[in-house]
């Protein structure tokens, strides 16, 4: 049975292909169109999935969309009705969009699918899954567990914003839910907006900013904005929010409560913004922990699966892990809406078609490497066409040359094998650096990524060495767990360091691997496994042999506002537009100084800021 899962039309559209229950391909449309968070129908991603599986469109049994448009419209109408006459401005803008297109999603989908193959009766093959059913299916059916408790958290789907339940074999039972407008995701987004970042993409930045601040406003949030109960259920006081009726997240009362207007994106970040970030982060963690504890009290399982945009909050995930209410946790790597494509397909296979499920040994996501790959022949050809100057090396030599460049503190573009699915680069489309270098973080942020200097980088570490460097002794292959650098690897603070505040704390080397140690000694860890990414594992092993350090800085291969690179040409363009000094694509090794100067690009202003 072949099932194509689709998520689209809101943000991060994606396609995923399931063949007899196995995820054979998945990719986000933005990687092909080069438009960040592209919400359009994932035509190119769908075509890629079919090509990867070498099947024709007519061989697809079902196409499953990841949410139900009628239910969403129902929520829209009931919300407008509940707040009438407020919300007319929003209604005036929303209704034409719905009446022209979104309400007729079935025919819109059918028309897009016809562009892929006009001979297929797509309408007969179209199914729709609930938004949170898709998230829950992506969390449980793709997990390594045969039974588990499930928690999904995001901004909002149709009605649901939070759901909890239990999965066993090929069944899924979501028994509790919190509905719109009460949403932990929207609460976080409100603070994302208030601290001057873009809703739906800036949430990572708020999480990264939080360790610079003190949670001074946490009590205020809990007192006025959130009515939080012992079991983790909550209600928001809507008097402070504008998203039900207006075009922004918050209103004047919210601004008055927190003492000022939202930060303009061009304004400097101040200590107050860091304190706000720390506060909303702490409240989020408190809500999530109460939810997981109450789920654990039900005694249904020792395993927990998570998905939904809020499950990308790896700091909160680390807290759940260390809370030890569950023995094992697994977070869907594409926890956001893109992963809904995988979940919708899995839900159709197991729940709709009733096909049995055997829990996979590791998980069903294949290390996240579900995207396109290029043979050495294709890479050579494509780089040659792009005018690149490169040397082809054998497998050992490419590893040794890369290690040499890393030890020389060069920024290395690393392009190998199948592209990752989900928001993280996991050593297939990555920029790598030496984590021992104290200047690596600011240098990568400012010269290579063109992004804010406060943003932390994540370490990739050999799985077998993770406990030697971090307070974690388990798998985190998808960079979804935050844990501290172990005490013996930390550097003692200098007198006077304690008096520093905010961003000033950034430049103090606080461990043997300062480039990946955040100001609170935390790190967002990726454990690297030989069975899912052998070449990256080989590189880390060789780097360890040379330096004694089994850790590398691993950041996504893109600049701020750009989708992660997909093809060798994308990688070469990014290489030529930034201060990446070495590029390794397959077995091709490229030095920046060997490249024709005429191919240099102005990349800094090439993408709209996120």
């Amino acid at each position, binding site marked *: 049975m072949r099932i194509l899962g689709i998520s689209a039309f809101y943000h991060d559209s994606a396609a995923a292909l399931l063949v007899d229950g196995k995820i054979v391909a998945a990719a986000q449309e933005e990687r092909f169109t080069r438009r960040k968070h592209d919400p359009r129908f994932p035509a190119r991603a769908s075509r890629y999935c079919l090509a990867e599986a070498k099947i024709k469109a007519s061989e697809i049994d079902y196409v499953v969309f990841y949410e139900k448009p009628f239910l969403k419209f129902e929520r829209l109408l009931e919300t407008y009705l509940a707040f009438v006459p407020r919300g007319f401005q929003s209604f005036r803008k929303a209704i034409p969009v719905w009446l022209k297109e979104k309400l007729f999603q079935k025919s819109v989908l059918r028309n897009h699918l016809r562009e892929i193959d006009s001979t297929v009766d797509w309408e007969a093959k179209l199914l729709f899954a609930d938004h949170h059913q898709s998230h829950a299916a992506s969390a449980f059916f793709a997990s390594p567990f045969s039974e588990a408790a499930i928690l999904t958290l995001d901004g909002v789907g149709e009605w649901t914003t939070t759901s909890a339940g239990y999965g066993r074999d090929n069944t899924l039972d979501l028994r509790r839910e919190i509905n719109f407008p009460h949403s932990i995701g*929207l609460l976080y987004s409100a603070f994302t907006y208030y601290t001057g970042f873009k809703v739906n993409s800036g949430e990572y930045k708020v999480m990264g900013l939080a360790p610079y601040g003190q949670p001074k406003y946490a009590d205020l949030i809990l007192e006025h904005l959130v009515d939080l109960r012992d079991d983790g259920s909550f209600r928001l006081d809507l008097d402070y929010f504008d998203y039900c009726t207006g075009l922004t997240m918050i209103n004047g009362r919210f601004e008055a409560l927190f003492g000022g207007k939202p930060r303009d994106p061009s304004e400097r970040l101040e200590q107050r913004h860091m304190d706000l970030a720390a506060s909303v982060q702490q409240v989020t963690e408190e809500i999530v922990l109460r939810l997981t504890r109450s789920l654990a009290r039900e005694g249904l399982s020792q395993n927990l699966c998570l998905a939904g945009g809020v499950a990308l909050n790896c700091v909160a995930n680390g807290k759940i892990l260390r809370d030890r209410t569950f023995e094992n946790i697994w977070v869907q790597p594409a926890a956001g809406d893109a992963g809904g494509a995988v979940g919708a397909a899995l839900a159709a296979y197991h729940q709709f078609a009733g096909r049995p499920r055997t829990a996979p040994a590791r998980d069903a996501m294949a290390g996240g490497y579900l995207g396109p790959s290029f043979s050495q022949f294709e890479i050579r050809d494509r780089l040659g066409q792009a005018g690149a100057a490169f040397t082809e090396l054998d497998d050992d030599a490419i590893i040794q040359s890369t290690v040499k460049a890393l030890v020389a503190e060069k920024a290395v573009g690393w392009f190998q094998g199948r592209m990752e699915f989900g928001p993280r680069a996991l050593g297939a489309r990555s920029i790598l650096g030496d984590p021992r270098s104290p200047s690596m973080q600011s240098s990568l942020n400012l010269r290579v990524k063109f992004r804010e200097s406060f943003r932390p980088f994540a370490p990739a570490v050999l799985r077998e060495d993770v406990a030697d460097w971090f307070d974690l002794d388990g798998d985190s292959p998808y960079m979804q767990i935050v844990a501290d650098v172990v005490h013996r690897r930390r550097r003692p603070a200098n007198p006077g360091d304690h008096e520093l505040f905010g961003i000033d704390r950034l430049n103090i080397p606080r461990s043997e691997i300062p480039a990946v140690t955040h100001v609170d000694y935390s790190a967002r860890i990726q454990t690297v496994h030989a069975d899912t990414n052998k070449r990256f594992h080989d590189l880390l092993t060789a780097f360890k042999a040379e330096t004694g350090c089994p850790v590398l800085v691993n950041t996504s291969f893109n600049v701020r506002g750009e989708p992660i690179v997909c093809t060798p040409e994308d990688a070469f363009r990014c290489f030529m537009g930034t201060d990446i000094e070495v590029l390794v694509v397959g077995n091709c090794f490229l030095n920046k100084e060997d490249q024709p100067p005429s191919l240099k690009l102005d990349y800094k202003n090439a993408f709209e800021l996120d």
Partner: protein
Amino acid sequence: MSFMRELFAFIRARRKFWLIPIFAVMLVLGGLLVLTKGSALAPFVYTLF
């Protein structure tokens, strides 16, 4: 026509018959908005859309 059939099936499944007149009014009002405005620019706040 199949759209109306599916919409009614949805209302029946959800047992929200009280939505029918609201749907009708909204469709008329919304239809007017479409006719008078023409623009289908979605606001940037994603929550409702």
